Each structure stands twice: as C-alpha cells, then as structure tokens.
C-alpha cells in the first residue's frame, strides 16, 4: 500500500527546512503548501534539499511532479497544480490580459511551465528560481537517461523536439 502523503503548511511552519527534513525522513511523500509566500532563497533551499539530499526517499510535491514533467517533456503548467485556485476562471481571465499587462512574462524562459501563474500569485521571483533550478536538474537527468528513438507523435500530445 502506498504511504499517505503528509502536508506541510509552509506559512505555519516555524522552521520549514527542519520540518521538511523530519517529514521526508519518514519515507512518506510530502506535499508543500504555501510556496507562493516564500522568498526565492527559502524556496530554493527546499528544492535543493529535494534534489540533492540523500535523506529524501519519497516525492516532495510539487517539485517531483514538475521535475518528472520536465524530464519527460510533458506539458504541465503551474495552474494545473493549484487545486485551491478557481483555476479556469482565474487562469483564463489573467491570461487574456497577459500580453498587455505582463509582457515580460511572455519573454520569460520559465513561461512554458509558469504560464503566468507566478505573476498572478505575486510569487514570480520565487517560481523563476524554482523553475530555473528544476529545468537545470531535468537537463542533467536527461543527459543521464538513455536516448530514446524518435517516435511519431500521438494525437493530443505536443512535444516538438
């Protein structure tokens, strides 16, 4: 039976890195809530723990899902990971105005995953840090994985090489 995920509310945690270390040691998946409220350096520290600490034996979300999507080049955006957000309305409304209101977003290297969510949530710098580090890790993992032969694309997917 898969171990149940445990949630870590970052806004309420007095020592988020320590809490994460303690929860990760239990072997249960950890779901981080409240990344939007962290400074880039704090969030980057949690990600570095997930990416590099041998004590991590189970997924830390949303990092694990984002990393897997990047490695496998699956289209996944931050809006897709926000169950608490009235997603479609907020997303559609915000994205419609993005070219005029936030033109910088559309030239950002993190946009393919961020998709404007960081600007909407006021956590742009935090997510840029996280997504830049995750992309670097995904590239590294991609180099380590055996090369797959090119297959014809399947309908409904969109993974241009």
């Amino acid at each position, binding site marked *: 039976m898969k171990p149940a995920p445990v949630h870590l509310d970052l806004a309420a945690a007095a020592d988020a890195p320590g809490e994460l270390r303690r929860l990760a040691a239990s072997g249960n998946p950890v779901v981080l809530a409240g990344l939007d409220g962290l400074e880039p350096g704090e969030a980057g520290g949690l990600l570095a723990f997930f990416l590099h600490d041998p004590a991590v034996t189970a997924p830390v979300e949303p990092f694990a899902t984002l990393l897997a999507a990047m490695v496998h080049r699956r289209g996944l955006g931050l809006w897709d990971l926000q169950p608490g957000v009235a997603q479609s309305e907020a997303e559609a409304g915000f*994205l*419609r105005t993005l*070219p005029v209101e936030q033109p910088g977003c559309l*030239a950002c290297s993190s946009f*393919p995953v961020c998709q404007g969510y960081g600007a909407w949530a006021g956590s742009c710098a935090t997510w840029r840090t996280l997504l830049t580090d995750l992309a670097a890790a995904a590239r590294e993992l991609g180099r380590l994985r055996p090369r797959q032969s090119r297959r*014809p694309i399947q309908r409904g997917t969109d993974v*241009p090489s």
Partner: protein
Amino acid sequence: MTTVILKPTDGCNARCRYCSAAHPGAARRMAPATLEAVFALFGDFALSHGTGALKFIWHGGEPLLMPPAFWEDVVRGQGELERRGVRVENGIQTNLTLLRPETIPILKRLLGSRGSVGTSADPLPGIRELTGAPEGRYGERLEAALRLLKAEDIRYGILFVVHRLALHDLGGLYRSFRARHPEAGLRFNPLYRQGRASEDRVWDDLGITAEEWGQALVDLHEAWDADGRPANIQPFGPWQRLQERGEWQLSCECSGKCATSHFGVDPDGGVFLCGRSVDGASFRFGQAGSLGAGELFDHPIRRTLENRRVYLRKTSCRDCPWWLHCHGGCANDAVLGSGTPFAPTTLCSGLRTFFEKAYAPAGAL
C-alpha cells in the same frame, strides 16, 4: 538543421502586383564583409547551439541580380564553414527570368546534389510581370528557364500565391501545373496583406478572406486527391502524413517551432526571425557582426515566439482539435492581422473549415 533565408539584395527585375517584400527605394546589395559576418555568426550558431548543419536559402528581391563575384564569395565562405565542421546545403528562391545557360555552372556548384530551385508562377496576365518589359515576357522567360533546369537535371519547385482572381478555377490551375511540371514540387500559399499587397487598391482586387482561403484549400485538396495525393504538394502532403502517420514535418508556418529552426537576413546583415520577418521588418534580433551566437540563441524574441505556442494553447487555441496541424499559424500573419503574435492568424476560421472537411472522420474529403 537551421535554415537561414538570406536576402543578398532587395532589388528585383520584376513588378509583381502583390509582392510581399519591402521596397525601400534604392536596392541594397550585400557587401562581401557582411556576407563574411553572416557566415561567421551562423557557423558559430550551428556549432554551439544547433545541429552543426545549415541550410541557406538565397532569396530576395531577386538573388540572380547578384554578380558572379558574389557567388564566388559564397562558395569560398561556405568552404570555410565546412572546414570548421559545419554541414552546408543551399536552395535558391528566384523568379528565374535572369537564368541563362552561363548561369548554370554556378547554380550547380551552389546547389550540389541536394539543393533545389524554388520559383513562383502565375499564368494570369498582369500579375507577375517584368519591369520595363511587355506583358507576358515574365512567363516566357520563366518557361524557358524551367526547360533549362529540366535539361540540366536541376530539381525545382513552384509556388503559387492564391489570390481572388484565381479562386474560380483552382482545380484547373492545379491540373495545368501538374501536367506541365509533373516532377516538380508545388506549393500553394495564401496572399498576405503585406508589401504591395497591403495597398488598398491591390488588396481590393486580389485579397482573399479566411473563408475564401478555406474554400481554396478544399478545391485544391479535391484536385490533389484526384491526382493520387502526391507527397510533394504543399500544404497537403505534410498534413496528410501528420494525419495518417503522426509525422511532424510541417512547414514553418504550421510547425509551431519556427523560432528554433529559421532565421532571415537582410542585405545589410540584419538578422530576423525569417524571410517574411525581413519583408515585414518584424522580429529583428540584431546585426551580424555585432550579434553573438549565444545572444542569438537566448534572444528574448526566440523565447517569446516559443512561448507563443504555449500561450495560444492555453487561450485562443485551447479547445481546437486541429492544434497539431497549425499551432496557431505564422506569427507574422498574427501580427499583420491583430498587431500581436499572441493571437491566432486571421486565416484561422478558413483553416478550421478546411480541416473539418478534409480530416474530420465524418466529413473527410
């Protein structure tokens, strides 16, 4: 492979009514030092950020206006690229009216065994004509040049720009081209409201709507179908292979990845997204000679255009079942129609009509 559409001159000996190229007045010609800077930039790019291969498409203006000395510089410069380890191919897009037997050796040297010639044709009088020459001379010279290419075993393809005056018999036009040039590739493009075609009097005569383009595709597809669906007819061949076999080798305006595959260069060495960007003065990266390969690779314009695909899929194209067939279309078209690349092209509704008729299970042609 990175494709560089290189315009060594914006001068032209023709006066096509709908020409989409910019006409800045005095024609510019690429200087030897500029050519050298262009080769250096793209050689660096191919080796550090690309696949090590470059395809140059010589375009214009009319590239055959360039003197033999220019082409000697091209061959010499490309030899240097090959010595650096870059694989080089060439193609040329020309109106062919300046092709003479004495031009053939340099053309063959440029094209090698893999290159080909692209040209444009329009049998309707008054559409494509030569400056200062009687009506019909363009067509005569073009036909003579095509005979010469055939005799010399040089591969060629023909582009036809679909405009209003051609709409009534596109099937007949298709059959006529195929009968006279059965071995040639054939491509049909819609007329774009750019360059001379942006002038109201030209657009009023020749311009087509999205719906007319959709119906034109339906008509042409019927002719293509009756012809046995040859693979080298665009845009149908690549769409059919995508539909049947999932092969993703769409032309630049439909691939959704033009920002990673194409560049355009003007006679002064200005570097743009593609040839249409040169003509429309849009998406300019900078200047060969001062622009570095790394700067070009990580340029905000490239990121913006790659992000365009993601943005459209989340917004205007969110529920479109034909996304894989067009990816929102050409960013230049979007800018022409809406003033922003972050919109589908103005041809969108026509394309959807065509896709529904050609490829939807119940309505396949």
